[in-house]
């Protein structure tokens, strides 16, 4: 799942080396903290958060298939 987030993020941004995903377990929820270069923030969030929402949709399905819950947080 971590791989999924970083793969999608990396294919959307200019500075791929700056893409970083941290996994933090909070109880039964796995939180994925996504960090990208400052200039790329807009690219992973998108208009009205549309890109972020799309990534979250895919992450949620991946989580269901893994039998867990996941959350994506985009860190500034």
């Amino acid at each position: 799942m971590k791989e999924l987030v970083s793969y999608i993020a990396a294919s959307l941004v200019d500075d791929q080396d700056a893409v970083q995903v941290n996994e933090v377990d909070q109880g039964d929820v796995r939180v994925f903290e996504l960090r990208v270069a400052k200039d790329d923030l807009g690219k992973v969030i998108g208009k009205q958060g549309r890109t972020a929402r799309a990534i979250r949709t895919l992450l949620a399905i991946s989580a269901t298939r893994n039998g867990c819950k996941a959350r994506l947080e985009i860190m500034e």
Partner: protein
Amino acid sequence: MSEKIKYSGKDVTEAISMACSALNVSQDQLAIDVLSPGSAGLFGLGRKKAMIAVSIKGSARTATEPAETTEHKRPRKEGGRRRQPSQSSPRAPRRAASSESSHEPATITNVDLDWIKNHLVKILAMVGFPVEVTITSNDNKIKAHITGAAMEEVVGSEGQTLDSLQYLMRKIISRRIQGRVMFSLDAGDYRDRRRQDLEEQADTLAAEVRESGRTKSIPALNPAERRIVHMRLQDDTSIRSRSVGEGHFKKILIYVPGRKKR
């Protein structure tokens, strides 16, 4: 600044782009004063044109600035409005640039297709779907079709997952391929089925509206789905369809022309 020229358009952005093309300069070379921000009005009533006055920045720049500030000593309202050109300034050039590059239909090579397919398969595998993808292109249209097990999950409820994936893929593709690309993604027979459902729903509602004269609506459709409904009903002169609402998911009203809604 002595040569301030006035332009008008339906909104400030349009007025600015008219000024830019008339003077043949880019927007950041212009000093722009918004005289009236204009208003789209309500249902076409009270529509006001936006007025701006522009001068070309440059050697006269020092002369322009003070003049601008004196001119805008008006109440804060005006100050707030003035932000509009700077707000729309990154938008306008970007639109100009994108219309240059994206108006040209892109040429798509087999290498591109393989690259796209690879991305798609990889993402789907990471989500947890071992699926097959076939990909074809026709001019600048690319169609990718997912087949395999668990198609219902790939589609998601109301096609949400499929549309998310399609959206992300469009973003990814536009970063690689210059120009206009039409990318559509299908899984199983979802798109066909959805089209049939929507057309049936449109027909049923249209019949009801014709019968009762009362307006009916279909809520929350995305642009492609709204298009299907409008296309289905466009040849029927006894009723009309219209999209209302804001944002990505508007609803469609089907009504008898000449009546107020509801």
